[in-house]
């Protein structure tokens, strides 16, 4: 009840986070990686045999060797250079250059993405996000088809979508802010994958709450809209612990990936952590509260 009564406060927090995220994305933009822009990305790591020299500033040396590129630390010991697209010969030259300026390092990864692949990824990303959103609305509307009073099942789907939109925008905004202030935090194919997983996962908690609303409505005889906010409020508090716990176990597993997992999936797990927390918040505080608002009648 507390949540539904004070829904304006919870909305406000969501709206602030949402607006800040949109602002960050509009002002600073996302830091798109070579997956989207095309280009070459070179990762260097210290040779197995050599001890890491602290006298050489590896970042500066690499920046000097690739003046057009963006250099940053990657993981504990490695460095990453993102530059324009290099063809096979250019790659050989780049390897040779690194071997010369940084003899204690070696190229451990070298990715080149041409513009065709970048365009394709953009198209596929947009398509899959739209398809996932549509599929989820359809599915929720279908799953809740028997509960059309006092709120039609489409509104459950609509409330879920608003909540989902919120869940996707917040991690994007978070990455825009982090990229602006700290560099890195690139948007790549894995980033989009993480957003899609957030979409699929956030809806879990929303479904748990809605499912309880569905059950409580079926038990109750009073189907008037004035009664509806009480039913939703009761459903939210009844399911509160499980909503938090189901997300918590997943976040715990993700924290393990973030801390101990390989560098490649570090940002990926971060997007998921932020997205899932935003998702749990929105299913508890936004999705269900929206249902009440959409029911039309104020308390």
């Amino acid at each position, binding site marked *: 009840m507390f949540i539904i009564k004070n829904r304006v406060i919870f909305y406000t927090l969501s709206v602030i986070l949402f607006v800040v995220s949109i602002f960050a994305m509009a002002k600073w933009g996302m830091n798109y990686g070579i*997956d989207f822009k095309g280009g070459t990305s070179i990762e260097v*790591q210290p040779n*197995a045999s050599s001890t890491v020299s602290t006298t050489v500033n590896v970042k500066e040396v690499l920046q000097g060797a690739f003046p057009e590129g963006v250099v940053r630390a990657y993981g504990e010991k490695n460095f990453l250079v993102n530059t324009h697209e290099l*063809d*096979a010969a250019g*790659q*050989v030259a780049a390897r040779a250059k690194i071997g010369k300026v940084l003899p204690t390092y070696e*190229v*451990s*990864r*070298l*990715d*080149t*993405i*041409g*513009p*065709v692949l970048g*365009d*394709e*990824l953009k198209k*596929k*990303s947009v398509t*899959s996000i739209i398809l*996932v959103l549509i599929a989820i609305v359809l*599915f929720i509307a279908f*799953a809740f088809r028997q509960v059309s009073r006092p709120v039609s099942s489409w509104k459950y789907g609509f409330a879920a979508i608003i909540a989902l939109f919120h869940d996707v925008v917040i991690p994007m905004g978070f990455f825009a802010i982090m990229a602006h202030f700290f560099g890195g935090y690139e948007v790549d194919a*894995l980033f989009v*994958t993480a957003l*899609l*997983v957030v*979409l*699929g*996962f956030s*809806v*879990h*908690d929303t*479904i*748990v709450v809605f*499912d*309880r609303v569905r059950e409580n409505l079926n038990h109750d005889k009073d189907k008037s809209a004035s009664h509806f906010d009480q039913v939703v409020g009761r459903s939210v508090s009844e399911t509160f612990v*499980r909503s938090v*716990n*189901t997300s918590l*176990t*997943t*976040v*715990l*597993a*993700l924290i*393990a*990936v973030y801390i*101990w*997992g*390989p*560098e*490649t*999936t570090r940002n*990926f*797990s971060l997007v*998921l952590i932020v997205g899932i927390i935003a998702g749990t918040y929105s299913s508890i505080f936004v999705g269900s509260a929206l249902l009440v608002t959409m029911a039309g009648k104020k308390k």
Partner: protein
Amino acid sequence: MNRTRLWAIIILVIAGLFALYLQKTHITNPFKLGLDLNGGIHLVYKADTSKLPAGEVTGSMATLKNVIEARVNAFGVSEPIVQTEESTLDGQKVNKLIVELPGVNDTEKAVELIGQTPVLEFALVRESTSTTATTAPSLIPTGLTGRYITTAQVEYDGQTGRPQVGMVFNDEGGELFAKITRDNVGRRLAIVLDGVVISDPTIQTEILGGKAQITGQYSVQQANELARSLKYGALPVAIELIGTQTIGASLGTDALHASTRAGMYGFIIVGLFLILWYRVRGIIAVIALAIYTIINLVIFKAGGIVMTSAGLAAFIISIGMAVDGNILIFERMKEELKRGKSRAQALRDGFARAWPSIRDSNISSMITAVILYTFAASPMIKGFALVFLIGVAVSMFTAVSISRTFLLAITKENK
């Protein structure tokens, strides 16, 4: 009651056997590792199919795949992957060729071996008003290309003794060649190799029998190389390298170790949380989770699923998600107990009532996974989606059936 105990024991025995299988096959049949964990080269080519009639694209791509496979096999790489992929971009079909060479590190050499194979075309020369030899003649494609060649070998000119390359067309190519020569007697037919006109003899008469020669100023060695590449490597369509990925073996090993470590710690943290929060039921959930892990690993191994770092991340996330079903059930059981039901009844009702939300939420994740898999732009994402899908599907079974059996087995049937 005895029956559920029996089932619980059967499940434990089967899980034990699975674990034994995983342990026994650890060396003989290890998990398939993707390039990012194993090191190697991933190359993406775009095939230029714009000149082909629509009906021939599929066939040409299949031929292309075979030709590249033959070349890659000659490279001596263990378990290379060559595949073609069709996608639509801006309403146009893009045909791609993807080559994966595990354990190889020399991109330039690999690219050279795969890509620099000749594209052979026969084209009619459009006679222009200017006949100066320096002007590049405009060519009219005839549709006869290297893909119709069945064999090529070095021959020697009967008069001059110079080496030349003789080609034999397949039936279709032979007919096409006969038709072209029949219809164009008196015109010049250019033999174009990689966009360069090698020779452009004038057609004297219709040529039957499906044979042709390339005569040029070749040394015996050059003629040999040309014949070999025409025979094994004349590409039916031109390909252009649009993406490469080279991963060092040590980086892959590090990533694999990090993923394994993250998986172990992830399991322990999730398990500790469950036991601290749900006590005895938490222990049951952890056993179910261990069985879940074993079943997944058996599927990965038996199904030959290629593991990538993204796939392993999906697996670890799925460990966190697999217990969601348990949490929903346990919370529901608490409610049923509060309503004054017996433990056994609360357990049965808890499972029954929690099922719709478990089913619905897992279906939404499976929808995401299927869409992700269908539109995956890289093998890494495909790997993620596949592992995620398997994980969610298996968790619906383990979180519900297995936990339920164990809980019933330890619950007394008294009121």
